[in-house]
């Protein structure tokens, strides 16, 4: 029977002025974070750098997919920099990921890009407090391709989020532990609308790129949320490897809704310490 691989999509452009205004706001926020970043870096702080792999299990539930949940393996790679002194901590990182998911044997491809994530945290009041808490900024792109559904289609879910980041470090015997939580509070979110013209469609890489920031709008918790929880265990203080568990959740609550969940093992390679 009729068998095509198609990507259903429709051009829905924002006015260029609105887009420019939003991009400008984002640029200003990003610049502020960069200033804070360099400010802290120049004060002789403790700097640590690491890279990590996190193989895991990911799930996606797309509003456009009849209620199917796609499950499967995913692998992420990223790097983190921490700048820390007695009063504050700044973290910076990026992450890339790919997953191959299935539902009823129907395949899907997921790509995750986080070009940058910043957090500027202050030591929580208290002389011996190990808790750091503060604002964060992250840029995330989620792309899912379903070649066997809707005659093949793909969707972007993008968020540029301001949120809160908390980190608690503690030692237990010879090991050290780190608990980290991050949740978005508000930001700009782009969720590609469902376009299901059953017959005509666009196809091609340029269309996928075009939809990266489609309908980018301001939103807060009532519209979307991204949350990350992380537990890391370093067997010895001078160990080069750290093991951990990471839970990620992303949800967009307006139609077409999307829920992304992943559970991963995090293997951190501590590259350098000053």
């Amino acid at each position: 029977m009729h068998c095509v691989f198609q990507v259903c999509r429709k051009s829905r452009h924002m006015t260029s002025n609105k887009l420019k205004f939003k991009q400008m706001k984002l640029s200003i926020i990003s610049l502020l974070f960069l200033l804070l970043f360099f400010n802290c870096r120049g004060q002789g702080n403790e700097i640590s750098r690491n890279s990590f792999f996190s193989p895991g299990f990911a799930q996606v539930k797309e509003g456009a997919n009849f209620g199917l949940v796609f499950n499967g393996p995913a692998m992420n790679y990223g790097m983190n920099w921490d700048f820390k002194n007695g009063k504050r901590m700044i973290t910076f990182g990026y992450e890339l990921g790919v997953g191959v998911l299935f539902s009823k044997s129907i395949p899907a491809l997921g790509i995750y890009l986080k070009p940058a994530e910043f957090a500027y945290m202050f030591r929580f009041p208290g002389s011996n407090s190990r808790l750091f808490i503060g604002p964060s900024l992250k840029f995330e792109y989620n792309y899912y391709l379903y070649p066997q559904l809707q005659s093949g289609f793909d969707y972007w879910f993008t968020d540029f989020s301001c949120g809160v980041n908390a980190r608690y470090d503690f030692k237990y015997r010879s090991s050290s532990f780190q608990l980290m939580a991050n949740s978005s509070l508000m930001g700009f979110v782009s969720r590609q609308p469902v376009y299901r013209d059953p017959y005509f469609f666009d196809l091609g890489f340029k269309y996928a790129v075009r939809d990266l920031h489609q309908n980018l709008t301001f939103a807060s918790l009532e519209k979307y949320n991204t949350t990350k929880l992380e537990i890391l265990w370093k067997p010895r203080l001078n160990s080069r490897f750290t093991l951990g568990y990471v839970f990620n959740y992303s949800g967009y609550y307006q139609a077409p809704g999307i829920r992304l969940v992943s559970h991963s093992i995090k293997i951190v390679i501590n590259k350098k310490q000053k």
Partner: protein
Amino acid sequence: MKRTALFLLSTLLFTSCLKEAELKKPFVSFTPRQINDGWEISTPSQENIDPDALAEIYRDFHADSDIWQVRSLLVFRNGKLIAESYTKDDNDITTPRAIWSCTKQVVGLLTGIAIEKQMINNVNDSISTYLTETSLYQDKKNIRIEDLLTMRSGISYSNDGLAGQSDDILRQLPDKSTDFILGRHLQDIPGVNAQYKDCDPQLVSAIIQSQCGKPTAEWAKEVLFAKLEIKNLRWNNYKDGITLGGFGILTTPRELAKFGQCVLDSGEWKRETIVSKEWIKQMTTVRIEDMYGYQFCYLWWRDKNRGMTFMWGHGGQYVCIIPSKNLIVVMTAEVNTQDDFQFNKGVFNWVDRIVQIAD
């Protein structure tokens, strides 16, 4: 304390999973709703079908998780709607959805009407008689209308995948659909080898359009859809204004069944002749013995083993006509699932079960 907190947190996180939505509603009732769409409504008992056995079939249809794609199952007997149920959304009763290649069978009916109205002389005419574009593609002048109706044009054309030419049509890349098709090279002598493809019925639509002086879809409203009391149907034209022939119709299961009833009643709808009896016979006579394991007529399908004529659209859209039982079974499914993920495995087992309980 810390250990307990870690344990609780880990347990909470590991058990956080997404749950699949209910893909089909549980079966409640197959009693048809009266929506005054032209269908006379009856009950299984009145039409000699065991209602309990039919309810069992419907329960299974709703419960079978292997056929998560299905959207509707409707049963018609003696020209009356006796059972219907929508597995996902009750609004499907009036919501038009893509029927993909069932469009070809509608084009088959329209061809008969065009012949009856002497817009087309007969199926042995060369396409060059009607399509002026053929003058630019002389190698195609020996293609007859019958070759198009039986998928034997010999034109090199594929429906499948990114490399297929239907993909170009669906992306509206060519400016002119007829030139695009006729411009393809001839891979077989016309009338010899059958290959299922969208370009042949597309040319039939172009031929009809060339003769009726308006888009085939508009003409079809006058000569077919209005007479069948079809109101929810939409039919797309290509960007050059030519109505799509290989696919392109959106309609409801109830309206889809009207085409089946018209064929079952030898071209009549409520005793009014819409298509000639002779054309219905000609159109449903087997021309190709093996096409995907079934038989192919003039754009219509046959299953000789079941004594069944049927419409078949991508994703799992079926109108099954069983003349020996005066029975029509309509099944529709999510459109646009691909390959093995379509509703096509064991589809006719559902029809067989209904046939078995029809006395």
